[in-house]
């Protein structure tokens, strides 16, 4: 948190070199130009590494099929992106839009409720003393270590027992659980919500629930946004659980739908175009939500580490 960082030294008079825009770093600790250049090169390489595929995707999605194989893969030919999108959306009565909507529901709803639960749970673990508290926390920590993929098959067998497979809930309910969210919320709550403040709220006559929602939640916003983003991205990209649970095409999230299409390109070559365009469109919501919330994300991400 910024409060931990020493106040910046008073700027000296005169012209300051351009790179001293970060005045909190003492001059003596600044890297040599070589180290700095090296770091920039490494960062540049990685930026390229991450952005080139997206660029390729954008370019590929903007071409018609005839040009796709015959023109430069990294530069535009005739621009038919909107025509392609039109075809994709029209294919099979707009099943793609249904998938996008499903993904938004699974990821948006799941992340929202999941964040709420994780926030409450972490807050309770941080602020209330009760027997078994550490045990519960350790179990939750253990949960962080278990990959979600490993749980998919057992979940399928359990959901089969209660006849809930191939329903909205079979993907939605497991998405609500976020051990990492609980961990982050606890660390953050114990550091940023002062006991005195909760005490004061109690003295003023606020119940525990009201204290949580009106006082504590506001102070935990950066952590909660981080948990929300993590959950949103994890659910949006989740593939294995829907693959195992869902049969009904109208329940698919966009990841599973595109994968299913991609597995059929041998027989239905036109699907290849739709997979490309669909993949491009499917990352847009993630980009938007990152741009909107990245301020909080950056703050929240470092929260646990410093305090």
């Amino acid at each position, binding site marked *: 948190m910024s409060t931990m960082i020493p106040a910046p030294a008073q700027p000296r008079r005169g012209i300051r070199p351009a790179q001293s825009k970060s005045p909190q770093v003492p001059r003596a600790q600044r890297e040599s130009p070589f180290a700095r250049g090296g770091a920039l090169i490494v960062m540049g390489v990685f930026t390229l590494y991450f952005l080139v595929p997206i660029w390729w995707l954008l370019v590929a999605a903007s071409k018609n099929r005839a040009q796709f194989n015959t023109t430069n893969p990294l530069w535009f030919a005739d621009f038919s992106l909107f025509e392609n999108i039109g075809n994709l959306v029209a294919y099979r009565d707009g099943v793609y839009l249904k998938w996008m909507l499903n993904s938004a529901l699974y990821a948006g709803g799941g992340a929202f409720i999941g964040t709420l639960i994780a926030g409450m749970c972490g807050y309770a673990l941080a602020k209330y003393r009760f027997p078994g508290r550490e045990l519960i926390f350790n179990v939750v920590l253990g949960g962080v270590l278990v990959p979600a993929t490993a749980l998919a098959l057992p979940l399928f067998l359990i959901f089969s027992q209660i006849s809930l497979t*191939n329903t909205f809930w079979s993907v939605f309910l497991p998405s609500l659980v976020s051990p990492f969210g609980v961990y982050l919320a606890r660390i953050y709550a114990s550091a940023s919500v002062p006991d005195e403040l909760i005490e004061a709220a109690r003295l003023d006559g606020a119940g525990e629930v009201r204290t949580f929602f009106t006082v504590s939640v506001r102070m935990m916003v950066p952590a909660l946004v981080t948990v929300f983003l993590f959950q949103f991205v994890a659910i949006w990209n989740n593939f294995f659980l829907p693959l195992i649970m869902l049969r009904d095409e109208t329940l698919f999230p966009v990841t599973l739908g595109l994968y*299913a299409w991609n597995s059929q390109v041998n027989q239905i070559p036109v699907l290849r175009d739709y997979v490309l365009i669909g993949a491009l469109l499917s990352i847009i919501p993630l980009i938007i939500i990152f741009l909107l919330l990245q301020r909080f994300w950056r703050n929240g991400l470092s929260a646990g580490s410093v305090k």
Partner: protein
Amino acid sequence: MKKRAVAVALLAVASVALTACATSVPTGDTAAAACAPSKGKVDLTFTTWIPGMEDTVAVWNKANPDIQVKVQTGPNGNGGTYQNFFNQLKAGNAPDLGQIEYDALPNFRVQDGLTDLAACDGVLDAKSDFVDWTWGQVNFGEDKSVYAIPQDAGPMAMFYRADLFTANNIAIPTTWDEFATAAEKVRATGGYITNFSQSDINQFAGFVWQAGGKWFKNDGDKWTVDLTDPTTTKVAAYWQDLIDRDLVSTNPPWTDEWNNAYNSGSNWTWNSAAWGANSIASGAPDTTGKWAVAQSPQWNAGDKASGNWGGSSTAVFKGSKHPYEAAKFALWLNTSDESLTMLNKSANLYPAAKSGLELPALKAGVPFYGDQAIYDEFAIASAQVSPDFVWGPTMTQTYNDVSDGFKAAVSGKGTLAEALKVGQANTIAAMTAQSIPVNK
């Protein structure tokens, strides 16, 4: 790569699931279970990955208000749907009907996941409606059993660039010897006669099938694995020679490079299945009208043999409460002209039913192939496919192991024959690990 990773993950999950349930041995002819009609209205579920199946099923539902079928979908079989079937069989909520490719059927049979439909009305009589070899794929050579209804087939023939062969005065090869000679001439012009697919092991299996090889045998008691029989070894040596002399390209299939090699005219032929007609038309749009189809080259001049690549069936799973109605639907789906025409249109399925080969849609000339009625060639090829080729019960693993070896072989490490040897050993090991009785 990602597809591969998923496949490996699925395989890992599969092995966990498999060790839990002891596998039963397929025994000779078991008495077919009774198959009586249910009372009242029946709802069936049908899982398939064929796009547009809903429309075909809608036609059935309209005509059969008492047997309503609901279509469920997913990725293709090896992409996850087979694993889902196994999970569902274990959990007891498998669909009534499912699409299963011929090469995966033995796996379901060994895991006791299929209902024997022989007692169901009209199923045994339907044998004569289907191309002979497809029936062998669904009854595993047991005369009194039927474990699925054949749906589509992939008889193989040779797609070739008629214009290039003519312009360069090269005769269309009718034997594999001529094919190798032609390959040299094509290479001299700068092109490649064909592409050897490093990861389509089922294409290679099609070549072996044509040559008369048999990879698996099941005497009702034990399996025999033979990926290294003299016939297979001969086929492997043939392609190894072409690879060694740089007479065939080795692009990974279904990629842009692969499409590009055909689109630019650098590759001249493709030995592929009926359903491949569309793959090449979409991958090589600049070559419209320049292609034609001929029968596959033969091992001995005058032979008439074809291989098969792909094809699937409609199976009824163990646990279905309505096998009678399910069988009735499966027969309609795979023999009625109406259904076969729709499936051919929506998914390029090439029917396994004899009557399907006469569909008007399969009699017309195809513009991409210079208006040749190419499906006539495939109809001839389908009749020439040997009915004796049997798939093993662990084909996903076999494909993966051989494919790894083939990929190494085309880049100069090892040979195709060595890859098959490894595949042989690993297949026997995998079957042993699943308690499937196998001759070692």
